[in-house]
């Protein structure tokens, strides 16, 4: 006898999902609204997407965001891989200190992190702009990237690397030829995660950005304060699509090439 899910279970799932996704669904729906009024449905239209692509300020913000995301995710992933190697290979005592240092940024409130980064840049005399946001995002996402790569490295058979050295590879080459391909899915997932985190960050960017480097979340936030217009729904929908793709891709990459046995 097969028992289906009870009515209670179905209700819980539906309500739970509604709680999580109703706002997003409404936003996506209204991005296709023909009316200028955000709350009144006047038929299907893609006019706000068209408007978005004529809005130079908005396009600039998207371009800045993508560049910040790609560069900061790359920096965070490279440093994250190195940190993960150091964490998995170091002696127990130094590992605790190192891990504490890396993971602290996971729990430091973003406002504090943003403020301290701002103070650092001011003290160092760096003009705020594109590179300060990028570096700050790398700082923010480094810990996440490290966690993802470290989890994979921990289960990685070290004798593979020893075998490569035994067969004539200097240690760095053994890492590049054998370990890196082995942990590649985790590295890709770490990059995706870092990119996604950078994409939707508002707090750190607000602290560390300067003229000419307005990111999309900053642009959206300032526009909303003047009043919601459907164009914002359109750009938000695109952003959601991008983030969702990134997260799903990161998940799929991690699932793939796992030993199936």
């Amino acid at each position: 006898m097969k028992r289906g899910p009870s009515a209670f279970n179905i209700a819980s799932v539906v309500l739970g999902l509604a709680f999580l996704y109703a706002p997003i669904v409404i936003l996506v729906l209204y991005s296709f609204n023909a009316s200028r009024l955000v709350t009144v449905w006047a038929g299907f239209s893609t006019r706000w997407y068209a408007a978005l692509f004529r809005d130079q300020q908005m396009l600039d913000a998207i371009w800045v965001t993508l560049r910040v995301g790609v560069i900061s995710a790359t920096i965070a992933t490279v440093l994250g891989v190195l940190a993960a190697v150091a964490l998995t290979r170091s002696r127990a005592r130094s590992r605790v200190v190192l891990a504490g240092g890396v993971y602290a940024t996971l729990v430091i409130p973003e406002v504090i992190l943003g403020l301290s980064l701002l103070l650092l840049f001011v003290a160092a005399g760096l003009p705020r702009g594109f590179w300060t946001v990028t570096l700050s995002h790398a700082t923010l996402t480094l810990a996440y990237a490290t966690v993802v790569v470290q989890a994979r490295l921990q289960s990685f058979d070290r004798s593979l690397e020893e075998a490569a050295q035994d067969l004539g590879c200097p240690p760095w080459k053994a890492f590049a030829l054998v370990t890196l391909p082995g942990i590649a899915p985790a590295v890709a997932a770490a990059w995706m995660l870092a990119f996604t985190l950078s994409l939707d960050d508002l707090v750190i960017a607000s602290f560390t950005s300067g003229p000419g480097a307005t990111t999309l979340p900053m642009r959206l936030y300032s526009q909303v304060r003047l009043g919601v217009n459907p164009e914002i729904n359109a750009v938000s929908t695109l952003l959601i699509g991008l983030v969702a793709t990134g997260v799903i891709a990161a998940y799929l990459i991690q699932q793939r090439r796992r030993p199936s046995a």
Partner: protein
Amino acid sequence: MSGRPNIGGIRETFAPWEDPTARPLVRFEGVSKAFGDTQAVNDVSLSIYEREFFALLGPSGCGKTTLMRMLAGFEQPDAGQVMLAGRDIAADPPHRRPVHMMFQSYALFPHLSVAQNIAFGLKRQGVARAEAAARVEEMLALVRLEGLGRRRPDQLSGGQRQRVALARALAPRPRILLLDEPMAALDKKLREETQFELMNLQQTLGLTFMIVTHDQDEAMVVADRIAVMRAGEIVQVGRPAEVYEAPADRYVAGFIGDVNLFEGRVATSEGGRVRLLSQDGPIEAEGAGPVGETAWIAVRPEKVAVHSEPQPGDNVLAGTILDYGYLGDWTTYLVEVAPGRTIRAARANATRTVVRPLGCGDAVWLSFEPASAVVLTR
């Protein structure tokens, strides 16, 4: 050397270790290594000769793997020298040593095909592409994996993977091949086949092999010489027959094969014969021992004969059969000669049927020749 009885009944033609002018290929000289408080290897000196199949045998944690890893370059000795062909290689990193290792886990690169795995070491040596391809084919043929070059390691069986690991380590033609518990993951039948294949391969290629194992049967089958290790030290080095028939001490006697030990005071030691006063009565063995001091006489179960009638002479013990194990080729008997004191005897089942079968509770008399027993002082 005529006149001296041969130990083990095997005429050895290959024995460079007996030649004082022969120079060893590998020489460990007073090598020590500690991990924290644990002394993994303690002042080990050892020579391995060209074309030799050398086994390091011991229980897990005896330091045999550490010793091998020092030769591969993955561990640095705290003291002593590791010499290869007369040169101290302590400062060479693993990738600069002409020494290759077959890992216990095989450590095949999962993202590369079988052929790419085998070609890995050749590529690092800068062997030309065409030559490398030819060598890969040659290796595949050598380990009987023709046609499987394009497979991935996870598409192979355990035995096939083991052979790929072997081919990969052999392809760059190492001066010495290290095998770390190479057959631990194989089942018994496959293990025996592989042992003979390994010996064949070693003979055909004329290479030097060093194997680390905790399996005494494996070491006995494959090796020219065995070094028995205990707690970081080498207890005995010798041909399998020497280690088995003339063990250096009780540890070696008990670790390799089954053994019956008689402990007692040495009453006399003259004319190449020792008389020991044990709790089981006087026991005699060929050899020499310190008169008046404690010693042991060891005798292997297969050298103890089981009789149904009382026997005349020395080295006879009366008892009852407590238990037996029928193994097909052998039957082993556990005979109680005094309350709580048992002796093991083994009989080859040379015939299918026996007129007078033995069973539990039967009274039997055990006997063995003094020449079949050995005197141990440690």
